[in-house]
């Protein structure tokens, strides 16, 4: 199976757990690697913003000597965005429904990000 197909499988599996509406694997420098996002969303821009969000949070936290954040969560009344590192080169970001159980999502996200890290290093 091609690398792309394997990465897309990881995203499909995430979606099948429910409550995850969209997801993407993004390079640390903001380029889209793989996505499961409706075509109405500007996926390239979403990717760039996710990388900036995580990168800025990592910089802010390590400036304070608190190490690296495990994730960045943004919440609104219509949903959540969670971005987490997936190895040195990539990050994983998901968009959830408003009712999503964050604990459960984080568990799934943790597993998925390990898989991405194994594939992309």
């Amino acid at each position, binding site marked *: 199976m091609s690398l792309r197909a394997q990465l897309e499988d990881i995203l499909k599996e995430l979606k099948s757990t429910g409550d995850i509406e969209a997801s993407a694997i993004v390079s*640390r*420098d903001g*380029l889209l690697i793989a996505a499961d996002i409706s075509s109405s969303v500007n996926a390239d821009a979403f990717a760039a913003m996710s990388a900036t969000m995580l990168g800025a949070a990592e910089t802010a936290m390590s400036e304070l000597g608190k190490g690296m954040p495990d994730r960045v969560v943004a919440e609104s009344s219509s949903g959540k965005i969670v971005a987490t590192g997936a190895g040195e080169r*990539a990050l994983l970001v998901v968009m959830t429904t408003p009712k999503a159980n964050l604990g459960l999502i984080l568990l799934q996200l943790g597993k998925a990000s390990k898989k991405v890290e194994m594939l992309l290093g």
Partner: protein
Amino acid sequence: MKVISGIPVLDEMIEEIPEGKVLTYWIDPEVEGNVFAMQTLFTNLERDCRCAYVTLTYSPEVVVSEFNEFGWDVENYKNFNIVDLHSAYVGLPSNCKYSADPTNVDEVNDVLMKVIENCDLVVVPVSSIIDVCGESSIECIGEWCDFIRDKSSRLVFTFVSWPYPEKIENFIKVNSNAIVRVGGVHHRVILGYYYGVVKVDWKNIKSKAILFKLVRPGGVRAYIPKILVTGPYNAGKSTFVHAVSMRSISVDRLGTTVALDHGHLEYRGFSIDLFGTPGQERFDPILKIIGKEALGVILVVDSTKPETFPRAKQMLESVAHFGLPYVVAANKQDLPGALPPEEVRKKMYLPEDVPIIPVSAVNGEGVYEVIDSLLGLLTGRLWVSEDEPESTA
């Protein structure tokens, strides 16, 4: 009649597909490379060339709808012909002007030669023919290649490179005057598709891999995933990104960029993503994150503020030290006291060969000249003529 490839960058490289030549798109199975041949055909159809498309595994209706998917309304062109090997293959009558039974070698040969006599360009799915008719069909294909040599036509082959016996691969290589490889890449973290010239016997060139995207409608676009737009605070970077992009967003707070600008642009066969950086020094960590893997840099400076030029130089050094091509946009030329480009060059101590373009981003003046200039530098690096020494970049 001159026939061209219709593929961005490739056209500049090989100029044309001369009469009597065979060009093969050598396609990795994971890539929708057929689009290259379709784009070559449609480009020439629009230029009034007589074109034919041989189909075996797809019905003529499916072929037309595949063209339509990319916005190519082939059915409205009188100079478009389908050579239908499909109907006989599935046992249906054909209603195309040219048709043949693929299992009958003589019939196929007769029709193909007639088509070659009557068309400027014939697209043939050689790997499908080999799949259906077996290895021996290469003899037949070889005859077409010989036949076309002294005709005023060209053959464009699509060869999907499944693991065929070496004999078949060699046959295709030997019989092709030009081979364009279309494949998948996994270059660092960029997962994408590329094409490149492997061989061309009417030009002395070497090409590098060119990333591409398929756009529907539109077809093959050379893909430039990241051009960085950087420069000092308030120089007009965000304004520039918005002025050139079809769609763009900025994360600006209190009138300054705190994260980035992102813009997308489809231009002259290219699909380009622009990343604008914040200008203020306190955001430099972000510049480091998103500045990676850029393919080129646009440095925007406020031509009325020479005191900001050292900062501009410093930003350029932090992103362009790997020999990335860059151009300078000497912005705010509409304001009184704006330094002309040559003054900017002097004050910044920039080499003579660095393009410095006068721009007024608010009025949209000069912005596409900047893009043209950078594309010129970028595509100049994608291929080299072997007659000239390779530039040291």
